[in-house]
């Protein structure tokens, strides 16, 4: 093979290689980089700042349905309701109030409606030391028993706050006890967790040994 023939072969080879590259770039341009399986957007409920429940104060302020708080639509003002107790001394919830689950206190010590509700005015609350409070004034009522928690709440440390940490920059919104706790059954209810992390390399998750295998 003479030198001219060699040059031909090299030039032709290079051209073919570049043409191949050209074809490859044209074919792949505009194709997005593969990201693995698509990750669905998170349900907006998980980024909502709503409280766990609506307190009476929230309902009144937002103009919600407060028909459940109009006690004298059914009850008689002059005739306070009588509590019925079972053999264990627990109050029997009448079927008109069957949505109420009595679960306040681990030892069933706070099982009397009138520990908190005012029998002389069912639309109001009363503390054990005889103060009469509006239905929206839950912190003062709860605080009459839960002293340390009330002290923390007053300092902004127990419960939810939102708005401005800098007091002179804007208002702070303090949520009251019943914005999160059901007064008849106060433990914070369990809820579904938001989705966990999606790994960049999902095959790592398969090899991952969870710390607590019985939960998987």
């Amino acid at each position, binding site marked *: 093979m003479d030198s001219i023939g060699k040059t031909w072969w090299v030039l032709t080879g290079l051209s073919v290689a570049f043409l191949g590259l050209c074809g490859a*770039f044209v074919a792949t341009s505009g194709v997005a980089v593969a990201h693995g399986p698509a990750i669905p957007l998170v349900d907006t409920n998980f980024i909502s700042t709503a409280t766990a429940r609506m307190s009476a104060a929230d309902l009144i302020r937002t103009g919600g349905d407060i028909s459940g708080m109009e006690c004298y639509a059914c009850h008689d003002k002059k005739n306070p309701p009588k509590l019925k107790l079972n053999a264990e001394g627990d109050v029997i919830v009448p079927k008109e109030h069957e949505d109420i689950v009595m679960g306040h206190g681990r030892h069933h010590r706070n099982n009397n409606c009138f520990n908190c509700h005012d029998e002389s005015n069912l639309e109001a609350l009363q503390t054990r030391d005889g103060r009469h409070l509006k239905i929206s004034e839950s912190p003062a009522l709860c605080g009459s028993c839960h002293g340390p928690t009330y002290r923390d709440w007053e300092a902004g440390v127990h419960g939810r706050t939102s708005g401005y940490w800098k007091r002179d920059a804007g208002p702070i919104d303090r949520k009251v006890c019943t914005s999160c706790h059901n007064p008849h059954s106060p433990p914070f209810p369990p809820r579904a967790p938001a989705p966990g992390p999606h790994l960049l390399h999902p095959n790592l998750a398969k090899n991952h040994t969870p710390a607590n295998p019985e939960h998987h």
Partner: protein
Amino acid sequence: MPDNNPPAADVSRRSFLLTSAVMASGAAALAASLAPLRHLGDYVTPEQFLQKYYKELTPAEMQKVLDRITREVEKQYQVRPDVRDYKPMNGVEFVYCLNLTRCIGCRKCVHACVGENNQSRNPEIQYIRVLKMPHGSMDTEKGDHNYAPASVPEKGFFYMPIQCQQCKNPPCVKVCPVKATWQETDGITVIDYNWCIGCRYCEAACPYFARRFNWTRPSIPKERLNPTMSYLGNRPRPQGVMEKCHFCTQRTRQGKYPACLEVCPAGARKFGNVLDPDSEVAYILRTKRVFIQLKEELGTSPRFFYYFDV
């Protein structure tokens, strides 16, 4: 044999056409193979490349940079953002307190953070990770990130969210070879995404795995883009840079609470100015009996405190 082959016959018509065709197609192919360089502008524009160091920018130059970022975001997302350079306030040092007794592990903070701070959704970048830990131990090695029960909390476990601890002695800042990350006077360690070279030294240095790398260009659906942006905070990041929790500079430097605190249904998260004795965080550090700084033996001195009550 020059006599038999005159110079004109050296290049025949046939070989000339063939050479021309090969040369032309070779040149075209070379040009085509360099075509991806046309998209270089998507990665770095001359303006971005020639931008000065953050701390050397005059206010007028900073405004130009912010205007440029506004244009870039508008071009990419068709949403007009409000990009500002929020500065630290005088007499403010931020501290975060997290009540491990109250946290129920619902991961709402994780997703509120992603929404507020314009993190990539696919691939997923999250600043907060929540560990499910068995009662009776603070050993994070026993933690599980991937729990997915029908409801939380589960009996016998507690939940420990971990994010940037905003250390007083941050190892990530020490290792940065280009000073693209530094600690500001209010205690927040920030990153200039236009100065970061993506070497990931800081990711390796961080003992809390708080820093994240943008392996690809972040993908954010435009309907979920948060248009309130800060330069050192939640503006969309380019490919190839680090990012991490910055205590929501776009919120906290205006006096607001961070997004993870606002969304926490259990009120487990508390944030404020530790230099103000009336703040919630000062009350917690003063009155709560037990609190830990994660891996305090490393001497990083986090501004993020975990505590328990009752």
